[in-house]
């Protein structure tokens, strides 16, 4: 079977560039970033995070996503297999002036965070009409 060669996809731990105030590992969520027309969309996989445990911060052209994974294991449970780790998610992106920072919107659904970053007026694709006399 090919299954033997497939690796379990665990979370990738984030580089420790800042001290955490709480114990536990910090993971880097996997993201897709794509552009469509006037919007840049960012999708981040944050399974196990409810929408009230996620924090999106825009400061000095830096967008930081911080989320806390709700530990679901109760006291009396004993692990037989443990691959799915809990802790925090954190990832930061720098925003260029192509993004209109006042219009960023975020939605959460089924453990996926979606951020819509509208392009600033000057970065929008523009079509220049050629006038004829």
């Amino acid at each position, binding site marked *: 079977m090919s299954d033997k060669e497939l690796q379990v996809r665990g979370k990738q731990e984030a580089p420790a560039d800042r001290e955490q105030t709480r114990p536990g590992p910090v993971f880097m969520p*996997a993201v897709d970033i794509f552009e*469509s027309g006037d919007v840049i969309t960012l999708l981040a996989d944050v399974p196990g995070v409810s929408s009230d445990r996620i924090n999106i911060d825009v400061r000095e052209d830096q967008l930081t996503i911080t989320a806390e994974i709700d530990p*679901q294991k109760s006291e009396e449970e004993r692990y037989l297999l443990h691959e799915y780790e809990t802790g925090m998610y954190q990832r930061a992106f720098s925003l260029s002036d192509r993004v209109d920072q006042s219009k960023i919107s975020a939605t959460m659904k089924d453990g996926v965070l979606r951020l819509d970053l509208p392009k600033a007026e000057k970065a929008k694709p523009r079509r220049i009409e050629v006038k004829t006399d």
Partner: protein
Amino acid sequence: MFELIPWRNYRASLVRPRKDLFDWVFNEVEVPRIWETEREWVPAFDVSETESEIIVRAELPGMDVADIDITLTDGLLTLKGEKKQEKEDERENYHRLERRYGSFSRTLALPKVVKAEAIDASYKDGVLTVTLPKGDEHKPKKIEVKS
């Protein structure tokens, strides 16, 4: 020619399952696979146990519940599914493509006999939880010593 191959092909090739040599050669020469990003993947699982239940949790962000398939046969619990990449026509300009798409299938041999009719599965915040109540024979039983 080489520089025209999109970068995501490179990443996809790292996770390509190599079934056997024949398949491998076959996959290599199949040209459209260069554009394919949907591959098999393995989600992370937790299996835990309490006195009365076995609990299986899987990290499956962004799934459609209809695409998750759970079966129990002879003490083997199989979780199968497919994560579809939302097709949006204008999604062309990718800057990053790190999230996994494609199908997964994982089978767990359950350590105890479970009550198949009482299995419960729920999906919340991208985490699938399957609760399997243990059969009565596994409940701790006190045996009186007669004198």
